[in-house]
């Protein structure tokens, strides 16, 4: 009996050898699927981007005056609570805290701050846009690196656009801060910076937003 079975087995083996060696790949495929899914989920596909900002140097020497800027070109943007933006043109000095100018309220939408900025910055924006179009259409042959440099030069030469001073009320958040800087980049504003909010400006925001100023301690 045993011999017969052995023989049969041997015979079976020989028969199998004649067939093409089929390997069942299903488990391998399963495993690969798993691995691919794992890698796809863990991969950080797009690397995070960065946005540069240069803040004005702090003046530690009391005798050095901060740089003077033209009042008529100045625009003050204050980031308020609840994703609101308040702005006023020109400047306010601490002496007229009795009758502070009213703030205009706007928002981060395309009809809000962007329209406001573009209206004031149209000349420069047009220049940059024309330049970009010429580069894209091939009228100007220039390397990618020099494009940035040329745009920077255009911005440097500009003397009509607004000078934007960005300030943040204490209830604003970091997202607002990034958004407003982003908006400056979109609108091609040549001169903008971030400065500390003054106490009378905090007061102006509180009046405009209807926050009781008794609840807040203004830093004089």
């Amino acid at each position: 009996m045993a011999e017969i079975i052995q023989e049969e087995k041997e015979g079976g083996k020989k028969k199998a050898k004649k067939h093409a060696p089929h390997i069942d790949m299903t488990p391998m495929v399963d495993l690969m699927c798993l691995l691919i899914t794992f890698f796809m989920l863990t991969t950080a596909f797009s690397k995070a981007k960065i946005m540069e900002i240069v803040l004005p140097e702090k003046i530690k020497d009391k005798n050095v005056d901060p740089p003077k800027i033209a009042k008529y070109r100045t625009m003050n943007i204050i980031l308020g609570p609840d994703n609101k933006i308040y702005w006023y043109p020109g400047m306010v000095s601490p002496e007229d805290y009795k009758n502070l100018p009213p703030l205009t309220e706007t928002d981060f939408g395309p009809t809000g701050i962007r329209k406001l900025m573009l209206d004031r910055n149209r000349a420069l924006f047009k220049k940059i846009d024309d330049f970009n179009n010429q580069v894209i259409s091939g009228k100007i042959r220039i390397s990618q690196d020099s494009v940035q440099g040329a745009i920077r030069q255009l911005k440097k030469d500009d003397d009509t656009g607004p000078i934007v001073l960005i300030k943040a009320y204490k209830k604003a958040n970091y997202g607002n801060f990034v958004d407003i800087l982003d908006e400056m980049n979109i609108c091609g504003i040549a001169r903008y910076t971030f400065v500390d909010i003054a106490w009378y400006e905090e007061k102006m925001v509180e009046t405009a937003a209807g926050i009781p100023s008794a609840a807040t301690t203004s830093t004089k």
Partner: protein
Amino acid sequence: MPKIKLPTKSPHIDMTPMVDLFSVVLTFLMLTTTMRQQEPAPVDTPASISEKPTPDFNMMTLLLSKDDKVFINFDNGPDTLLKFRPKILAEMGKRYNIEFTPSELREFEKYPSSIGVPILKMKEFLGTRDNKARTAFQTGVPIDSTDNQLALWVLFARQVNPNIQACIKGDSKTGFPIVKKVLDIMQDKNVNRFNLITSLEAVRINVEEIQK
């Protein structure tokens, strides 16, 4: 007598091309992957139009979480070539009279994500192997004016690596006072150039629309 008639052809699908394709995809993913690092606090970065990629080295990242904690990271995790991380920690230890052993320095060098541990707890933190216990130590870098460890980290990082750039990674919901405080600390140390880490958002501005 079989009741069910088997199909004459066995339903064998040749999986070889599929396996080939999978291998290619898998190899590609394995080679290109950069592991997403687990940050000590979940941070949802705001979006911007900037297309500049983050640098891989010469950077220190300040992570500002929603609950006003500050974490710091140098050179994006352990892949530093010039081994700045242990040097920075050693300098920090010198200031606080803490002697870090070589194995602790190596542990700090290898640590993959941001660190927000007060320096006095750092030895314990590096000695722990358990991940859960480690997260308990991550209470944020102290930034009070009485014990401003963030300023010291920044100072020593810049001493060890003069080319280091400051990056700020904040959550959109992070309150502004903490951002302001961190910016002030950095500016006190004469760091005026910041890189804000954002995620990309495509915005197309229609010029005609604006001309109206």
